[in-house]
């Protein structure tokens, strides 16, 4: 039976990409460029965060312009808890995840009463409030932010080494993407996409659309919070700019660039945007110009984002 909504797992390309990612640290070490691992780990974390936003924008039709708030909440949770003597990632990261989820529950409960542009601006407003709140709180370091004493530990695994951190981030991202695929292929995923396409009719078919959207909003917030916790652990410091609207805007750009409503859209967008930045910045201080031109080209010539482009090229004989 034809199933247009089911997201297939294409084992061969998927395994090829995973194999490449697994071999990357070895290549980086062999090439004598170990510092790239920190960058690569950052890309993986942003891939997770952007994917969580893609779940909202691409599959749920919830164009959140405040996703940075959940990232910030997770990051600050780790930064606040560590100096209190909690050093285990087993505690810190779930706490970051929970912080993202709780904040998403509070914000989503209010914002999801609205839709369209109003929803966009409401989510922006709450994220900006969080930004200014953090900025004004001295216990959170105001505009200096907070520094972490060291990287958390993960049981026997010492995350102080960049290679170890990279592999943990990779594992989290892969788990996240698999979970997202499972969610989307499950009945709740169908319902989510039905709401995106025609919310009123879904309501008329018996779906509690508000509750469903809130649930997914909280799931995405949790994933973003976890991403924030990882980011704080990797960087060793957090700052209020994590909450700023420019950060939310950047995440949104990643999703649209990669392909909203494609499973790997968020991850692809994050990887391409950050890698392009890194590459162009090596050659010119005017790298944002290059990024701008790239984005413009994508909008004009690949309306479905990079994932859509890849699929179009791939399906051509």
């Amino acid at each position: 039976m034809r199933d247009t909504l089911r997201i297939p797992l294409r084992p061969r390309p998927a395994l090829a990409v995973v194999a490449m990612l697994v071999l990357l640290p070895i290549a980086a070490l062999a090439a004598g460029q170990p510092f790239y691992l920190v960058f690569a780990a950052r890309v993986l974390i942003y891939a997770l965060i952007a994917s969580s936003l893609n779940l909202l924008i691409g599959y749920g039709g919830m164009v959140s312009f405040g996703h940075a708030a959940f990232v910030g909440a997770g990051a600050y949770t780790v930064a606040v808890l560590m100096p209190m003597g909690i050093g285990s990632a087993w505690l810190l990261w779930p706490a970051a995840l929970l912080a993202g989820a709780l904040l998403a529950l509070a914000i989503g409960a209010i914002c999801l009463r609205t839709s369209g542009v109003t929803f966009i601006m409401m989510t922006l407003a709450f994220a900006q409030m969080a930004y200014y709140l953090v900025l004004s709180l001295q216990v959170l370091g105001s505009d200096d932010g907070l520094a972490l004493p060291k990287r958390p530990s993960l049981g026997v695994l010492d995350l102080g080494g960049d290679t170890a951190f990279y592999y943990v981030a990779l594992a989290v991202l892969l788990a996240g993407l698999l979970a997202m695929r499972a969610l989307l292929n499950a009945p709740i995923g169908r319902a989510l996409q039905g709401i995106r396409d025609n919310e009123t009719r879904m309501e008329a078919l018996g779906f509690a659309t508000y509750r469903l959207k809130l649930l997914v909003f909280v799931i995405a917030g949790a994933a973003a919070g976890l991403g924030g916790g990882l980011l704080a652990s990797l960087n060793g410091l957090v700052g209020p700019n994590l909450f700023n609207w420019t950060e939310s805007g950047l995440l949104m750009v990643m999703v649209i660039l990669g392909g909203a409503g494609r499973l790997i859209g968020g991850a692809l967008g994050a990887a391409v945007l950050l890698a392009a930045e890194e590459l162009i910045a090596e050659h010119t201080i005017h790298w944002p110009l290059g990024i701008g031109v790239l984005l413009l080209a994508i909008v004009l010539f690949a309306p479905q984002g990079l994932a859509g482009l890849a699929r179009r090229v791939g399906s051509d004989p």
Partner: protein
Amino acid sequence: MIEAVLRVSGLQKRFDGVLALDDVSLELARGELHALIGPNGAGKTTLIHLLSGALKPNAGAIALDGRDITRLGMHQRVRLGLARSYQITSLFPNFTVLENLALAVQGASGRADRERARAELDAVGLGPRGEALAGTLAHGERRQLELGLALATGARVLLLDEPMAGMAPEEAMRIVTLLEALKGRRTILLVEHDMDAVFRLADRITTLVQGRTIASGAPEEIRRHPEVRRAYLGDGMMV
């Protein structure tokens, strides 16, 4: 004794000060097919919006099986067994026909049951079109699917808003046959302009004019009712 499944009393709806529905009362007996007729703008769709929960009334009450549902949301009413179809087709264009129906099955029951969706597909006469994207259907097929979505919820009480609107005669005939087959098994409120279909199908008919019920009764009574004839004279639909 007739048992009222859906009881509507004193329903009133105002839009910007204009009364679209004024003191409408209605009872649907179990298993009956009750037709709601009236000229354009009479308030038929508005009544369906109120009964389904898409709009809230300014006054009046709605009870399903004796339970007050006036303040319940749309999805809660569907879960209680009250579903509707739309006058203006409202589908999921990026889903296949079968996936559309599967959503409807899932919505009311909470379970995604593909077998039941397939059964509904055949029931509504779209058997060969299950794999087509809903957005690619012809108008008549879209109307069939529109009706199918309401049926697939499995609701005991159906509110159908002009299911045959804009259909070619032979397509409309198929819907009439389908509704005839449903008669007695589900309780149906049918809004329809096609008087041949109405008189063929309805057990009882209520006439709505400018937001008021001017007559309600058996088809023969309605056919002879002087006020109904007057209201319809300009339309020339009931000769």
